[in-house]
């Protein structure tokens, strides 16, 4: 009863917005190529399912590889930065400045460097999820308390042990918070990378559907990309539920 009630609220919220969308489209007689009604989008999802899946495959690959690469690099950098104050002082500001460059401006540069292969798209997806994870992981590694560090010192623990026994497990909630962000940003990175010089992917489909006034297909492509991010988000949430069972008291 309780469980079904917690699910019922967001479902009725979404349903009410769908009803509003449908009502507006019908009432103002909005033409389908400006904005289709929700049922047209659902039927477009079904009729174009093979086209959507065909284009989902490269986008999902890019987003997933970028997600893994970006977060791996971010965690490695955070590990280096908390162990070397000098390197952190030298390169953390560079990372901050690098992060201010809009990803859409960076993509042509990366495509020039790495060509039109999948590599450039994976790197774009990786770059976009790197910074939030880097910042979160530095905070996570530093979230150990003074008495926890004193405890490790009384036991004559090495820096390596302090890292693996204390800092790394301590940082897990921060890591998962960052991964939740990276789920959506890596999909954004993959789609943006597909807007330049490629012929498959959800990003390509979005551009083509717009130019062809196939608005219901555009909406269906958007729903597909959102479903991809949602699936990644759900996986991360499930992993967090399985691996982080502890609470700070």
């Amino acid at each position: 009863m309780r469980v079904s009630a917690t699910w019922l609220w967001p479902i009725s919220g979404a349903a009410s917005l769908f009803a509003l969308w449908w009502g507006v489209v019908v009432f103002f007689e909005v033409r389908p190529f400006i904005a289709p009604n929700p049922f047209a989008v659902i039927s477009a999802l079904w009729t174009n399912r093979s086209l959507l899946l065909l284009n989902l495959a490269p986008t999902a690959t890019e987003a997933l590889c970028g997600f893994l690469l970006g977060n791996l690099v971010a965690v490695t950098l955070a590990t280096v930065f908390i162990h070397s104050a000098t390197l952190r002082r030298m390169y953390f500001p560079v990372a901050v400045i690098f992060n201010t460059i809009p990803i859409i401006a960076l993509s042509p540069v990366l495509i020039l460097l790495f060509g039109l292969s999948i590599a450039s798209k994976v790197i774009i997806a990786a770059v976009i999820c790197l910074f939030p994870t880097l910042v979160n992981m530095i905070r996570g590694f530093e979230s150990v308390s003074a008495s926890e560090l004193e405890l490790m010192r009384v036991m004559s623990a090495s820096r390596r042990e302090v890292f693996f026994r204390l800092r790394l497990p301590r940082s897990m909630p921060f890591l998962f918070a960052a991964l939740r962000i990276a789920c959506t940003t890596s999909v954004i990175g993959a789609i943006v990378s597909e807007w330049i010089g490629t012929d498959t992917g959800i990003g390509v489909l979005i551009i083509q559907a717009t130019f062809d006034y196939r608005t219901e297909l555009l909406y269906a492509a958007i729903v597909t990309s959102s479903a991809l991010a949602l699936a990644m988000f759900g996986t991360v949430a499930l992993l967090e539920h399985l691996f982080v069972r502890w609470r700070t008291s």
Partner: protein
Amino acid sequence: MDHGQAIELIDLEVSFERDARRVVAFTGVSLQATAGRFVVLIGPSGCGKSTLLRVIADLLAVGTGRVQVFGKAPAQVREARRISFVFQDATLLPWRSVLDNVRLPLQVGNWRRVDRDSRQPEDLIRLVGLAGREDALPHELSGGQRQRVSIARALVTNPDILLMDEPFGALDEITRDRLNDELLRIWRETRTTIVFVTHSLSEAAFLGQSVVVMGANPGRIIEEIALDTRKPDNRIDRTSTEFFAITSQLRAVLERAYGDKAGS
């Protein structure tokens, strides 16, 4: 158990930098404790009692003067894993179960290289009254239970000296009394040297074979009160007139320690 000096502090001064100023934590501290003794440090905040504990544990560097723990430098004693520390908050690793928290000191540092006998984690969990809760996570325990786990963890390396920094400060009075009873029971069983920091008069009177009263500004020892003859075998009834007399005496000395600051 040898009855040599467990702790020997001679004319110790420790200071540290704060906001580009040198702050003296305490000065002129001399103190001796034989092995197996239960020593309580009490004093107003800022008297340096926690700092003193950290110098003995080699968590802070000695300024000037001499510190010897079992005739050795604190760093040597720490590296030999003869010291355990109990903090004000239990400092349990929240992702580890009770049993794994108690095991931690045997998994970390140079434990396998130092030649010491450990105690069975399961036995210690029973000793602190938490049998059956081995698999519980720290957030499932009460504050008092968490502190019991941290005491079990401190004892697992069978330490020669146990340093306790206001371990029961955050607990209610009845829980604190019970844990004090249990701490004395554990101390009788292990005969570990204990240095215990508190700001509670009744806790100091109940636990200590000797009570060291410290004052602030600068931190220093005001008086060391030995209670051996008044508490045979370090036992006393909390409702006795003798207990009341000891508490009153400590109160008088402590009020002197507050000095001009009293009432401020």
